[in-house]
């Protein structure tokens, strides 16, 4: 090192000419500022970041891991780990904090189903979608088993490529994926919507086949006859919703709670346009995960249909099933930008970044608020609004079956992950920050 050489030389000079001004002390420290500046100018400069360094995109997983849905095999089968003594560790039931998943590709869309996960990338490569978790109904496609080449895996423990029957696999891009209880939908930009998995109620958009065996099935159905381009897909528990660029909503699948919104309580196996209060309205977003559905229009109105046993639609009707879309006239909510719907909980986000919740369960307003039919605002202080940082706003909300997640952003352009953990995963009725 340059510094040590200088020290040795200076010590020699000190011994020869005796201590005086401008020489180093015995500790090797330069006595004068000039010497310090000279030593600093000679020190080498380290570079830790190359010129073309790009930030790696990260995927984090957490939650229940026994079905393999987290994509980390050592959680489920510890003996598959490479380190010694891995087989003696018990398998991990819950991953409570976000765990980084090692993936090379840049993932643009991810969806969590009931025990399985789909990840998709906006790439033109042949492999665009990866799936992990439960595959007993081929909701992740067909993954050939290594041991028995004629059968498929029932549990996929690692993110594995999902084979898609695309006409032009090197030009088509996958825009979005969505997962329901036992089926999944994949939205492409030029080849329509692909659906896989259980079709017992027609939720995959094809005719129901009696006694069909879904396990190890290669069937991937393509739906292209919509009036216009499909811009968003949403999977409910056993039904599917499609939103076109014309602002129209189509649905198919199980309808016993009216979640297909087609005016009857039967199953439907062909995607059909919805009417009711949605007729003529330009819808920009649909949301569903259980048996209730919400839609947001361009003017900021909220429409709902489906299950209302938990007061989700009690603001317009007392009946517990609504099979025609109805407009929900909420007065204190402002212009709604986004809606999210879980099993028994509903939430909307308005243009000012405020979140309103209603329904039944842990809603995020303390242990005393268990159910409400009208939206209640969650205080912005729970999302990090303080005098110190007054520009915190919520920018996106999502729902799981019984928990919410919200992403905040401040005007400086940064995003913070902030989770409203209201659910059985150690859920307090309150906002906690994740990162």
């Amino acid at each position, binding site marked *: 090192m340059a510094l040590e050489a200088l020290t040795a030389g200076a010590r020699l000079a000190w011994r020869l000419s005796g201590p005086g001004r401008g020489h180093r002390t015995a500790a090797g*420290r330069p006595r004068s500022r000039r010497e310090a500046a000279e030593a*600093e100018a000679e020190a080498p*400069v380290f570079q830790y970041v190359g010129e073309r360094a790009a930030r790696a995109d990260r995927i984090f997983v957490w939650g229940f891991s026994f079905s393999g849905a987290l994509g980390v095999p050592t959680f489920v089968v510890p003996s598959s780990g490479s380190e010694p003594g891995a087989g003696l560790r018990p398998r991990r039931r819950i991953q409570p904090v976000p765990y980084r998943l090692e993936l090379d590709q840049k993932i643009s869309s991810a969806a969590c189903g009931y025990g399985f996960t789909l990840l998709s990338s906006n790439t033109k490569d042949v492999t665009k979608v990866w799936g992990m978790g439960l595959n007993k109904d081929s909701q992740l496609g067909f993954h050939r088993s290594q041991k028995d080449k004629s059968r498929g895996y029932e549990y996929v423990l690692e993110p594995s490529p999902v084979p898609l029957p695309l006409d032009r696999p090197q030009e088509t891009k996958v825009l979005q994926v969505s997962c329901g209880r036992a089926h999944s939908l994949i939205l492409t930009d030029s080849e329509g919507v692909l659906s896989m998995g259980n079709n017992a109620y027609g939720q995959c958009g094809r005719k129901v086949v009696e006694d069909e065996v879904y396990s190890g099935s290669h069937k991937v159905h393509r739906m292209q006859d919509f009036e216009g381009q499909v811009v968003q897909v949403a999977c409910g528990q056993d039904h599917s919703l499609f939103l076109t660029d014309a602002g129209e909503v189509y649905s198919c699948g199980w309808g016993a709670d009216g979640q297909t919104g087609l005016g009857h309580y039967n199953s439907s196996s062909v995607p059909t346009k919805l009417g009711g209060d949605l007729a003529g309205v330009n819808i920009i977003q649909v949301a569903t995960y259980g048996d209730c559905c919400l839609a947001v229009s361009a003017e900021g109105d909220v429409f709902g249909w489906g299950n209302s046993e938990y007061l989700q639609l009690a603001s317009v009707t007392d009946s517990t099933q609504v099979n025609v879309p109805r407009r929900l006239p909420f007065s204190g909510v402002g212009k709604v930008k986004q809606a999210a719907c879980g099993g028994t909980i509903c939430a909307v986000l308005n243009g000012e970044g405020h979140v309103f919740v209603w329904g039944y369960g842990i809603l995020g*307003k303390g242990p005393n608020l268990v159910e409400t039919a009208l939206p209640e605002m969650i205080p912005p202080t729970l999302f990090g609004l303080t005098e110190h940082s007054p520009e915190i706003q919520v920018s996106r909300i999502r729902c799981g079956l019984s928990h919410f997640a919200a992403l905040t952003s401040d005007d400086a352009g940064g995003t913070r992950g902030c989770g409203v953990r209201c659910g059985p995963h150690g859920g307090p009725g309150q906002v906690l*920050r994740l990162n």
Partner: protein
Amino acid sequence: MGSAGLARLHGLFATYKPPGLNWKHLRDTVEMQLLKGLNAGKPPDPEHRVHFLLGPVEGSEENELTLTATSVPSLTSHPLVRGPEFTRLKVGVGHRLDTQASGVLVLGVGHGRRLLTDMYHAHLTKDYTVRGLLGRATDDFCEDGRLLEKTTYDHVSREKLDRILAVIQGSHQKALVMYSNLDLKTQEAYEMAVRGLIRPMDKSPMLITGIRCLHFAPPEFLLEVQCMHETQKQLRKLVHEIGLELKTTAVCSQVRRTRDGFFTLNDALVRTQWDLHSIQDAIQAAAPRVAAELEKNLRQMPVTQQLPDPGQPRDSAGLERCKEH
């Protein structure tokens, strides 16, 4: 002058400590200036004693002695005999600042020292502005320490810095909730969270309640940090760690406390104002605010942690014990 002045001197006030001054020397200087002010007052008129003087009778030829009564000033209370009236004054220091840091330093005089303990137990946050310099790493995280490494910093942008600060704030937020020892499932905890009052009321490591970048002009950047249970050295280490997260290095060039609890820079007295009258005015001005804030914090503390009431009124404004001479 002295005792009346002393009576108005019980309470808390804030001073501005310049960098390079040891906090102990500041405290000693303030004590000296207060004593100077207290002793400078005009001493009270001395008592008079009746003294019988033996002297010759006037207007008589014989040498007769007679006693004449005279009133003579008594020297027992003269300052040149007894020394100055006040030699020691009890001045206490609140949250300390190390020598290189500057900013608001709260002092308490006399009975105000009890309020210092109350302020400590209120566990209020403090505001700092921290200035950092990218590209160098030193052994004590300061600009003038021994150089360890120099690095490039062209890749650092405002966005990356904001992202790192958001990660820091998020992890400290989680720690705040953990160290506050609250059962999150209760309605009480929810209400405290809504008002933004979740913070540890006990010992804890340094916790940052808010951090943001005020100014970014590489290699220099200015952060505003709102924290509790901190030392200035830990703040410098924070700057060093921010440099490491940004894949470069950083040293801290300035740590300045802009607020300590409810004392801000506006309340802080500068070196030219460290004399008796300014300090008395500052104490009187701050007294109602101090009492109100401490009362508010006392009410919000969980009952198990409140100190036993010593049975005396807490606010210094009520203690007007004038010794009559």
